């Protein structure tokens, strides 16, 4: 079964309301019929000030991985800062009633330094993440 990601974006900032609905089927890199078939999913709580690599395994580089991250903190002053390879990407704030920020990005993991790292700020942030990928370098016991 395919994995399908759908977005629905609405805004009334402009004179006319904006509404965008789009979906995509998550495929392996460069293919038109071979779906992404592996997932790493988790929920973590990170104390303020701590920085961690969100993805613990090493996804195969330069593939078609997609990463979803949501901040489930209910305090709008709490946030997680996202970095990749020391490049600051942005911040995901918490919010009441499940309104906290999320992101959904293609994740390249182009080399060992390109991990997605998160830093917790304001308090303990509860973070949900899901990585859809097509292979990781598993650790031998």
């Amino acid at each position, binding site marked *: 079964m395919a994995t399908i990601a759908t977005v629905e974006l609405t805004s009334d900032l402009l004179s006319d309301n904006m509404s965008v609905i789009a979906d995509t089927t998550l495929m392996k890199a460069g293919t038109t019929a071979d779906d992404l078939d592996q997932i790493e999913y988790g929920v973590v709580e990170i104390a303020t000030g701590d920085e961690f690599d969100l993805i613990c395994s090493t996804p195969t580089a330069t593939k078609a991985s997609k990463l979803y991250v949501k901040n489930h903190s209910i305090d709008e002053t709490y946030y997680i800062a996202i970095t990749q390879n020391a490049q600051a990407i*942005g911040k995901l704030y918490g919010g*009441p009633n499940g309104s*906290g920020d999320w992101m*959904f990005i*293609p994740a390249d993991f182009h080399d060992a330094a390109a991990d997605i790292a998160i830093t917790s700020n304001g308090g303990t942030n509860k973070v949900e993440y899901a990585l*859809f990928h097509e292979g990781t370098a598993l650790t031998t016991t």
Partner: protein
Amino acid sequence: MATTCGITISAGIAPGFGGISESMTLYQAGTLTDIDSTTGFQRRKLKATAAVDLITMASENIEPKDSVASKVYIRNIGDGRGNIDKSVGVTIGVNAERIGKLYGGDWMMMPLTCIDADDVTATPENDNTVVLEFVMFYEEA
């Protein structure tokens, strides 16, 4: 005024994975005040493999506040005439860091720092026509 964005991921990867359905309201950083500025919905046609700035943070057309709660939505809509090639992608980057590749039909929603150096870049995989739709929401400096 409000800007909201929902995501639904339906995945048949694992029988126990029930999918993801979440929404966020785009607030100004650390508050419950709606985000107040946008670039508006845009589309950019690319025909070469050279990297281009999709969003130039130091542009005089926008004056975003740095390191707050900005977000960008980007979608690869194929050649803009209804032909979407899932096998060819456009690499999206921030500053000099490549984030990942949007294949035909793929979309992303990502937080941004909006720091002047952190332009959002797009680098097509080949010189076939590809069109990106995008909109950025930010706080006015």
